[in-house]
């Protein structure tokens, strides 16, 4: 039994399951009538007769409903932190991440996002460096810290 045995077996099972899911989607889409809502109308069609909150149920709307701005901004925010935390240090990295994240919400005013980012940079310094005593450089090598 080599190192590839389990991954290969899992891959085959996964491919088979995927094929069945694809086939099933063509033959019998499994959207229940009350959950098959087109995007944009989700909140208006069935207001409150289902009390189960969506936290543990899959969202029935198709992938087409994914909005570009929040998705890209959040990805960029986390990615920015990963790429800069060593180079720029904690304060600039959290500031940038906070700013990008704040901009993820459509309709956020730039000034407000800026305020949130500054507040977050200060808060993370207070919480993680002062209170929890994590050893993180406030400013990184790129800035001569």
């Amino acid at each position, binding site marked *: *039994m*080599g*190192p*590839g*045995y*389990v*991954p290969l077996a*899992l891959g085959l*099972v*996964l491919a088979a*399951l*995927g094929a*069945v*899911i694809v086939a099933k989607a063509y033959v019998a889409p*499994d959207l229940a009538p009350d959950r098959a809502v087109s995007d944009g109308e989700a*909140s208006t069609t069935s207001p409150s007769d*289902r*009390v*189960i*909150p*969506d*936290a*543990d*149920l*899959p*969202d*029935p709307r*198709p*992938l087409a409903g*994914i*909005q570009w701005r929040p*998705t890209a901004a*959040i*990805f960029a*925010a*986390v990615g920015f*932190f*990963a*790429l800069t*935390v*060593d180079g720029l240090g*904690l304060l600039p990295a*959290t500031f940038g*991440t*906070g700013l990008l*994240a*704040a901009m*993820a*919400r459509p309709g956020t005013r730039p000034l407000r996002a800026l305020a*949130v*980012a500054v*507040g*977050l940079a200060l*808060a*993370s310094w207070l919480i*993680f460096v002062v209170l*929890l*005593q*994590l050893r*993180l450089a406030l400013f990184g090598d790129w800035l001569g810290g």
Partner: protein
Amino acid sequence: MDLLDNLALGFSEALQWQNVLFCLLGVALGTAVGVLPGIGPTATIALLLPITFGFDDPTSALIMLAGIYYGAQYGGSTTAILLNLPGESSAAVTAIDGHEMARAGRAGVALAVAAIGSFVAGTVATVVLAVAAPVLARAALSFGSAEYFSLVVLGLIASIALASGSTLKALAMIVFGILLGTLGQDMYTGTPRFTFGVRELYQGLNFVAVAVGVFGIAEILRNLHDPRTRTRVVSRVANLWPSRTELRQIVGPVLRATGLGSLLGVLPGGGHILASYASYAVEKRVSRNPGEFGHGAIAGVAGPESANNAAAQTSFIPLLTLGLPANPVMALMAGAFIIQGITPGPDVMTEQPALVWGLIASMWIGNVLLVLLNLPLVGLWVRMLSVPYSVLFPAIVVFACIGTYSLSQNPYDVLAVAVFGVLGFVLIRSGCEPAPLLLGFVLGPLLEDNLRRALLLSRGDPTVFVTRPISGVLLALAVVALVVTVLPMIRRKRDVVFAEDE
């Protein structure tokens, strides 16, 4: 007597001042995230997991994380009752009758009943945990690799059988999770798998990064796509104490729900959400006037609240005795054990008695703290809802990044958070739940290790899984569970359980 000795040890550990403090911190945080819709206990524990790495004492870390979990059950019901806004999914049932009671001016009574029910259930479930855990752990010590393999299979299958949503997709998510778990160097030969020459991937994916991504970040993306309006119908809370008649009315529901919840909590995948729905259904059925349900039935608050709290406590049993997490929160707790250098499993009970019993005792202490914390401070918690989401979510993103990074000062882990955040969101959107993925990811290495070890011991003979009696029974149970889930007729019945509340 063993049990008393153990509990005494537990309480002496849990009552150390710093542990009480962390317990308080945990339940307060838990209540807070329970109140706030949009961030659940799973995401919070995932986000705080990295921070506990810096704790000197593993007991404190685990006590705090556990506190968040059951604290959230309390907080979620508070807003469910007052605002018809379940902050936590298991509180959705409480909202039905709890909010009706609040609208009828009985908000105080509803809150008190929820607290009393939860407290009684929590106390009983703690005792159940203390009695059952050592017995199960002793049984588990006789398990070999074949038994463990079959047990993991059963756990994974059972978690699908009890979960909501598409069975097929849940199964696929589990397999995908296991596959992600194989990433990195093979533990027997050292051959790198799926690393594509990237050296940072040799150690495999960081569990915390995956969890923070698929639960924390994906959850934020989901909320940003679906901005819900917040209703603010805060009823005034007066007259906290229930009358004697009302107290008499809730004795039955609380006791039934405690039993039901304790049982369901142990089962993989079910846990507290299933418990509260099931309890509501049961109470409605045994009630002398079922028409009352939906219009402020006191049993409709007492039952589900007790059930979810009992289940939250007993879901620790499989983790502490077998090392198997029954739900995503327990998977995170398993992660917390591992971060502290402890492998959860049957040995933990004997090797770290202070830790295990301290954790168990802290749950009871936590329940006391929750009652003290919640009833007088209801107003404060409700006011927390006025924190705008536009401040809250960037804060969560930033803390997630710092937390993950501080774990091993590795930027690649943070990059993994970004990738798994978007991936998790896309999966949620396609109707695939991230919870089975995480369970598969956590249990995957255990599954592979035991499979290969069992096959090595049997010299490649696969019948060993069926011929060893315990292993064979476990696998048979897994097959039964799978068949039951897939059979359409029974599946429809399963949907009824979830739709009962209408």
